[in-house]
């Protein structure tokens, strides 16, 4: 197993742990405007995904991501399955050549495209898109325009997602179950945007830990999240 594959598995595991810890928080947010199942759905789905990817032997990054997505699709009910899981499955094809700046940007863009197409939502609809759009755009710009290493681009993307989550509070839902509330959805933080932020935060924290452990300073700047192959694998 390559170092990259191990890293992606670790990320899936960490996301599962984080969402389990946030289960009640997400459920509370969803109780206010939806059907109160987002916390349980996300925690259960990612726990199953972590188990599924753990069982993969000798595989590549794209397969790990695809397997996680497939598991979410089968375990998470309602709209979250296709939005979180289906989008991962489609975007995983962008990682066929491993993790590089280019493939990561392509992955993020495809993921966003699938979510917006499937959910037919745009920024300002009080959905996960409000966190995702600024995150993906910031990531792409930080890499392609500002020439930042991927890990720093990801840190900026997380900041942008956080502002996106805050932006969902004062606006009115026009997509998703909360849209049935009309003006009553104003003042509520969107659960989907929030769980999206948790996933991105965990991706950043886990990658940072691994890079620090690998003495990230010595990593080639053009592909900062592509450590050497592990000879033990």
């Amino acid at each position, binding site marked *: 197993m390559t170092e990259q594959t191990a890293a992606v598995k670790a990320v899936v595991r960490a996301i599962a742990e984080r969402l389990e810890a946030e289960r009640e928080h997400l459920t509370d947010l969803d109780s206010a405007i939806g059907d109160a199942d987002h916390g349980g759905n996300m925690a259960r789905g990612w726990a199953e995904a972590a188990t599924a990817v753990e069982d993969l032997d000798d595989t590549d990054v794209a397969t790990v991501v695809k397997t996680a997505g*497939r598991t979410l*699709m*089968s*375990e*998470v*009910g*309602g*709209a979250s*399955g*296709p*939005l979180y*899981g*289906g989008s991962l*499955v*489609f975007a995983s094809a962008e990682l066929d050549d491993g993790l590089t700046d280019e493939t990561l940007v392509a992955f993020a863009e495809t993921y966003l495209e699938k979510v917006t197409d*499937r*959910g037919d939502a745009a920024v300002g609809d009080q959905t996960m898109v409000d966190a995702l759009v600024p995150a993906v755009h910031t990531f792409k710009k930080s890499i392609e325009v500002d020439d930042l290493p991927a890990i720093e681009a990801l840190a900026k993307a997380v900041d942008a997602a956080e502002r996106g989550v805050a932006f969902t509070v004062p606006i009115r839902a*026009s*997509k*998703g*179950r909360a*849209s*049935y509330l*009309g003006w009553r959805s104003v003042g509520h933080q969107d659960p989907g945007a929030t769980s999206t932020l948790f996933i991105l935060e965990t991706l950043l924290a886990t990658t940072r830990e691994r890079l620090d452990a690998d003495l990230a300073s010595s990593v080639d700047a053009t592909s900062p999240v592509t450590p050497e192959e592990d000879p033990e694998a």
Partner: protein
Amino acid sequence: MKKLINDPEDVVDEMLDGIVAAHPERIRRLSGTGVLVRDDAPVDGKVGVVSGGGSGHEPAHAGYIGDGMLDGAAAGEVFSSPTANEFEDLITACDSGEGVLAVVKNYEGDVMNFDTAAELVEMEGTDVATVVVNDDVAVEDSEYTSGRRGVCGTVLVHRVAGAKAAMGADLDEVQRVAQKVIDNVGTMGVALTSCTTPEKGDPTFDLGEDEIEVGIGIHGEPGVERTTHTSADAITDELTDAVLHDLDLDEGAEVLTIVNGMGGTPLMELYVVNRRLQELLGEQAIETWDTWVGEYMTSLDMAGCSITICSVDDELKELLDEPVDTPALVKP
């Protein structure tokens, strides 16, 4: 609320096994899924017609699996969409190579899971066409909603698309007639009581002894208006007017009508409603070509009914006259 169940967790699973046990020569279950298909699926040379959605609406949708209607149906948990994987398995199992029409009710989860599945099976080379049913006239398409809900009119879409497929039509034609029904059908419902889900065990919403909820969906979600309970005739007038207003029919138009029970209302009362419905149509010079009264798409144990009116032309009448042989709907 007393229910004839075991563990609420197992209710859908046990129901599906029970359906197969009732029709072992006709229906089989795809192992490990909530998908039921015709025993002989995929039918050689025929376009597949499939549907699905949350459970709790029986006989929809598995009750409509059979000759002249559906090749298969996916059942999710109570009032929850099946997963995209289940829709994928369903479409794949019903594709003979001629393609598959998916009939989806307009609920976010159903639509997204079906779309995701369609995209995945298309990558594998299966042709999929989708129609989205949105016959509920209660909730207008506005900035407040994600469009109109799909309810009892869906059964007519299954019926017409299934008949067209059985006649050997290609996927485009099957999709066209399905869409024709959607363009010409409207439904409005009323609840006299809430439904009670097996998991929760208590009513989903509170409705006073003297209250009714007009314009309800099929999941115990709120309607458009809560009013004081009145007579069958007054309620029928209100539902019928709303549907007719939406359909905007010409004098002399021919229609098929459905008085559909929501799960907890005796047939006696549905006939009382139907009597008034037919009177009203007669007064407005609308001709009833066919009448259905019974339970076609329910909401667990909710008391109440919905009224569906579908405008029919020669083509739809011909398709609705075709034979059908399913657990819930039979016409020789």
